[in-house]
């Protein structure tokens, strides 16, 4: 097949403190193709977030390199947007101003059109002029997702974006994200420690070991969408991942 969208080559990351040195990543390599939805799954405190930040250009690896479209990543890029777990949007801007953040270069009318389009897509019509502190946690994350989509990015890096939400809202947000991904086919790298979340979202799940993080296994999820969370195929994949991670299936 053609060149991978994202090519992660032998990444190592070590944090040096006073007299101590913590190895976070030890030799992580994988490739992601255009339009894939990849979930990084691993226990909390493993190096998943560090890995995503390196791929996103916010942190430098101790060794190894990341290529996107064949070019080495040297810093963040406006075509590849990072969605943070929380407080990624600016509290001093209204919803529409937040969503228009990356559209400063465009003529006002065009900008307005794009902002309205994504406000509608994430279901925030009527809240254009609201400030973030007037919104619920789920609505804030929708603003962040809309802000990211508005600049028409190739890639979304999502670091547990729904981690701080209650479980019902989280389910709804997942369904919406899948709907948007199916429509727009961005490449998405999504960090989570939630096995169900990974299986519901991903085309490919990369399971990481506890620190120092390595790839334990890569699992394709060929389930059709919308995914039936009680189908035998779904449960079989879940069982396989639970076994890989040493998580009991029955409590």
């Amino acid at each position, binding site marked *: 097949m053609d060149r991978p969208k994202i090519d992660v080559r032998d990444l190592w990351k070590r944090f040096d403190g006073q007299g101590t040195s913590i190895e976070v990543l030890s030799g992580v390599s994988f490739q992601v193709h255009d339009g894939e939805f990849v979930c990084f799954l691993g226990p909390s405190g493993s190096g998943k977030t560090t890995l995503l930040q390196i791929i996103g250009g916010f942190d430098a690896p101790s060794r190894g390199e990341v290529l996107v479209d064949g070019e080495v990543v040297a810093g963040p890029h406006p075509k590849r947007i990072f969605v943070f777990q929380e407080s*990624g949007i600016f509290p*001093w801007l209204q919803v529409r101003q937040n969503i228009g953040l990356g559209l400063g270069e465009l003529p006002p009318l065009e900008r307005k059109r794009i902002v309205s389009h994504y406000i509608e897509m994430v279901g925030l019509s009527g809240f254009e002029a609201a400030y973030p502190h007037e919104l619920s946690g789920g609505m804030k994350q929708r603003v962040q997702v809309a802000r990211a989509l508005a600049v028409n990015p190739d890639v979304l890096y999502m670091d547990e974006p729904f981690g701080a939400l209650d479980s019902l809202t989280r389910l709804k947000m997942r369904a919406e994200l899948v709907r948007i991904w199916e429509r727009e086919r961005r490449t998405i790298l999504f960090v989570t420690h939630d096995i169900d979340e990974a299986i519901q979202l991903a085309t490919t799940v990369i399971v990481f070991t506890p620190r120092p993080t390595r790839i334990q296994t890569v699992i394709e999820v060929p389930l059709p969408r919308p995914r039936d969370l009680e189908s035998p195929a779904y449960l079989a994949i879940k069982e396989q991942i639970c076994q890989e991670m040493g998580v009991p299936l029955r409590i």
Partner: protein
Amino acid sequence: MRERTTGNVLFRIVSPVAVSGLLVALWWIAVSMTRDSIMPTPLQVALGFGELVQKGLLVKYTVASLFRVTWGYLLALSLGVPLGLALGWFAPVSIAVNPIIQLLRPISPIAWTPLAILWFGVSDLSPIFLIFLSTFFPVVVASAAAVGQINRVYVRSAINFGISGYALFRKVILPASVPQILTAMRVALGVAWLVVVAAEMIAVNSGLGFLIIDSRNAGNRYDLVVAGMVIIGLIGLVLDLAMRQLRRIKEFEWGFLGG
């Protein structure tokens, strides 16, 4: 639980009036009982207040004091906020400038009075200079701290969207710091109002501070001394209430939630 104290509007109006009234009554009784000829009763103070109004001194001195506070305060803000933001954002500036600021900061502005008189003489410039000093350092330190405490995620998001340089400052650093700077401005205005009174006792021939010291020196007019004190308190209260309104700016409400 809440109903008992905060829910009752009547209580919120009546109780402060009652407490104040009680204190005034105690004052009155104490002065009457001691038959002190110098310490004024509330009535004498009220009459003194009327005398000040009649002579036009009240307005004149209040305007003089506010004039000095305004200039000293605005000067301190216009220099202090930019310097503080620079200290917070550019590490080299901080390394170079911070030590001297930390050294000058603990010096009471009143300690600068002899130098102020040496440099500016007995003129408006002396108290303006002292007010400037008293306001400048808190504002610098608060502005620098505000930048230092900006959530890193804001900066990262902005950079991710290709915002850098001056745009980053204007769109992120400044608005993210504003709530803390507003709080510092409010505190600083309170300090400026404290300092102008002290400065006017030494360095000039007008203003509310001068009124107090002059009333005492020229014939022990303690009724005017206390009247002056009351005016200072009232104006300080009004200034603080005005500054509080800044928190209502919709854009910066987020910075004052729960505060």
